[in-house]
């Protein structure tokens, strides 16, 4: 029987690859939606890599798109992260708490959670009856990630992906 640790490592590996794709999609011709899609996928799998190590049913974790915000809640209490970043417990919690709205926005890029609203994969119909196509849409999240809090969230995501084994598996 496949061990949960194997599943964790599998999701982590794919999350790292999605993150690399997010970071390498640099040509200006790439519409914003594709980069955000990679970011959403990387964070969802990062979340699943952590959540699979818990007590939830494996299927419940792998079949859900709601993983990144849960990851943020769990990681905000992670002693390894506090220790590595030399931060007090309350400081890390406060930091993560401030980042939750943007984490929520990233998580809700998944079409299943976007509820027929803006998402980077499929066209949607807005309330006025206009059809929007992801490649033509200016996602507010792209600008929001350029802020100090946005950069901080991206730093946490990258650091968690890089040091996952030491932070969450040891």
């Amino acid at each position, binding site marked *: 029987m496949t061990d949960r640790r194997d599943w964790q490592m599998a999701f982590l590996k794919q999350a790292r690859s999605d993150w690399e794709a997010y*970071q390498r999609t*640099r040509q*200006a011709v*790439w519409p*914003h939606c594709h*980069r955000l899609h990679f970011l959403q996928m990387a964070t969802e799998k990062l979340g699943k890599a952590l959540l699979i190590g818990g007590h939830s049913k494996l299927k419940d974790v792998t079949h859900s798109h709601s993983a990144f915000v849960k990851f943020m809640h769990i990681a905000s209490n992670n002693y390894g992260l506090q220790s590595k*970043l*030399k*931060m007090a417990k309350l400081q890390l919690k406060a*930091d993560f708490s401030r980042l939750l709205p943007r984490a929520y926005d990233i998580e809700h890029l998944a079409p299943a959670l976007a509820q027929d609203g803006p998402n980077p994969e499929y066209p949607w119909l807005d309330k006025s009856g206009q059809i929007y196509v992801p490649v033509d849409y*200016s996602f507010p999240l*792209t*600008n929001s*990630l*350029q*802020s*100090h809090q946005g*950069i*901080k969230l*991206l*730093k946490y995501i*990258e*650091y968690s992906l890089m040091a996952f084994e030491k932070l969450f598996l040891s």
Partner: protein
Amino acid sequence: MSQNHQNLESVVERIVHEHFELEENLEKVLWIRSRATPEICLLEVNSDTFATGMVQSFYFPPSDEVPYPLILAEVTPEEWQKILKNEIELPEGWSLENHQAFEREAVSA
């Protein structure tokens, strides 16, 4: 000086001004100008960020607000001192040989 160059400079100055206005803990912004490409590379020294011992940079494609590719990185003041001592490397292609520094006092004046 070409018009494009002027535009690039004014865009950088606007971003820097906005960031100083929004972030009270932002101490300094360095515009890394060593690249041949029209990317805007900004290294921000902010006491509110956390130290990882490396410079993590993030790319943002051109948009209506910033019509140039933008690469942002944030470090702590302590990490900045280590960068000056070559104890922390800058991202590939970045160099302090040709940069412009913006200090809060000068920008706010």
